[in-house]
């Protein structure tokens, strides 16, 4: 048996935990650069605010009560997510973090001491008491069915956010699947559901009843797996440790458009540093470094330009200096002045776990001496939280930085940002 625990309106709820004045108030959280709505509290949903609505439209809209907006505060969300995870691990033997606000739990055999739904309510109470966040719990014999149960527990309030689909009660499972539209199934996107729709498959139950060989022939093995999972055959197991990364991407949209080479170079240097730091965190070395830059495809009266360039290194590296040099070389190849760039990023590829590789006899580039030691010092200074050191290439005056005008304090991760209480 699997359980899927997910935090209700996660980002918006995190913002409310430390703000008692926002209890029962509509709260929304905006994407990077305060672009559009990515999370809504239940009060905001009730006002009819939809996901993905641009902030500039909402700002001027009239609502019966004031809507409180926040820039996304990922330091806070990550900290709260870890706390939820820690609470779940206290009660379940194995937990997989599926996303920042969703965790799969292995609950095999739990029903020999407590009913599944009682256990779900216990989980919810435990997390609620310790973190102030509310979770919903869906349970089923496969991950896909657990996800369907979670969907249903949200759709029908009478379940109180906890629902278990068990093998002993197949009728209930079938009833639920007959009410679930295909596009709500885990792993079935809008395109797939459209194609399924043309074949007359519109509900989860219809998909479950479809011959799996037919699905493999007309779609792919992934959807066939979904069909098997809907029928209670578990094909996806719990992944406790995430698979090692094959690629690292660092990219941002700029707070304001960049039109000078100097500013773009600073941005690329910053992403290169961040990427190199992540790479070292993964204990990997990389050989391919790609840089991309692009203008906004939506800007009126401006030609669109976007390009990507890749540098291949002779030896794998995780030294920030090598990555910056390669990134700037790649940037120089694709930089065209005169455009107003909206976004840039860096991609690190072709990983290997060690820096060992065949050196070329005639190479004039030798590996850097004491590179690992220097990088270790760099990372430990930056992780100590006492101050930062960085390469001069990213500049000190970065007005193109992400726009986060409504950022809440990092209540749990910064001394200066602690919540206060009147005594």
């Amino acid at each position: 048996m699997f359980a899927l625990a997910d935090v209700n309106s996660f980002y918006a709820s995190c913002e409310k935990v430390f703000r008692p004045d926002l209890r029962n108030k509509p709260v929304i959280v905006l994407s990077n650069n305060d672009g559009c709505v990515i999370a809504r509290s239940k009060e905001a949903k009730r006002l009819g605010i939809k996901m993905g609505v641009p902030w500039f439209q909402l700002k001027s809209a009239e609502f019966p009560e004031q809507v409180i907006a926040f820039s996304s505060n990922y330091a806070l969300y990550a900290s709260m997510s870890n706390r939820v995870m820690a609470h779940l691990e206290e009660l379940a033997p194995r937990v997989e973090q599926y996303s920042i606000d969703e965790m799969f739990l292995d609950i095999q055999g739990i029903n020999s001491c407590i009913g599944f739904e009682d256990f779900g309510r216990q989980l919810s109470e435990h997390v609620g008491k310790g973190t102030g966040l509310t979770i919903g719990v869906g349970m089923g014999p496969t991950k896909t069915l657990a996800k369907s149960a979670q969907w249903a527990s949200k759709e029908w309030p009478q379940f109180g956010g906890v629902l278990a689909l068990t093998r002993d009660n197949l009728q209930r499972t079938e009833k639920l699947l007959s009410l679930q539209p295909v596009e709500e199934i885990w792993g079935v996107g809008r395109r797939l559901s459209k194609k399924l729709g043309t074949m007359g498959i519109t509900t989860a139950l219809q998909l479950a009843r479809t011959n799996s060989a037919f699905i493999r022939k007309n779609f792919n093995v992934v959807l066939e797996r979904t069909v098997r999972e809907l029928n209670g055959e578990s094909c996806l197991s719990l992944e406790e440790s995430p698979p090692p990364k094959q690629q690292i991407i660092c990219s941002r949209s700029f707070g304001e458009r960049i039109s000078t080479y100097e500013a773009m170079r600073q941005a690329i240097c910053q992403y290169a540093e961040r990427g190199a730091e992540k790479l070292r965190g993964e204990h990997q070395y990389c050989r391919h470094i790609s840089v991309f830059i692009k203008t906004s495809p939506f800007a009126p009266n401006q030609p669109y330009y976007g390009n990507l360039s890749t540098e291949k290194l002779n030896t794998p590296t995780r030294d920030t200096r090598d990555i910056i040099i390669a990134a700037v070389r790649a940037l120089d190849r694709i930089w065209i002045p005169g455009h107003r760039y909206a976004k840039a990023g860096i991609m690190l590829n072709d990983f290997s776990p060690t820096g060992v590789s065949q050196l070329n006899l005639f190479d004039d580039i030798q590996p850097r001496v004491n590179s690992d030691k220097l990088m270790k010092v760099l990372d430990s200074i930056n992780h100590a939280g006492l101050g930062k050191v960085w390469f001069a290439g990213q500049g000190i005056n970065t007005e193109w930085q992400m726009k986060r005008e409504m950022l809440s304090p990092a209540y749990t991760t910064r001394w200066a940002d602690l919540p206060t209480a009147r005594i």
Partner: protein
Amino acid sequence: MLRFISPVFEPTLFTLPLFTERCPAGFPSPAADYTEDELDLNAYCIRHPASTFFVRAIGDSMKDMGLQSGDLMVVDKAEKPQQGDIVIAETDGEFTVKRLQLKPRIALIPMNAAYPTLYPEELQIFGVVTAFIHKTRGKD
């Protein structure tokens, strides 16, 4: 006559164990078998790390018990509030720190005669203050 001497391929591996522990040349430390972990203030103050939050105190309503403005409070959300606990409660959309009275009637009692006792109709408690830290030097 020429004799070719070819190098030996695959020489037999000969391994020696490497002792990574350093061998002191003098008398061994008599304390070596008695070392214990250093005391950890986190372990002393925090029972449930995942549900513990730090909150800064502002004001002087609790001065009779030594809790002063600027002190750092260790707040555990998972602890069940009991009679006499120092709690962080929500009043008028704000966090407030008071001593909790459950019997005979629910009240939030300040530890300073200059402040009134509060009798909230609906009690929302954020967490129980399990410790507070008052820095005597290097205020932050």
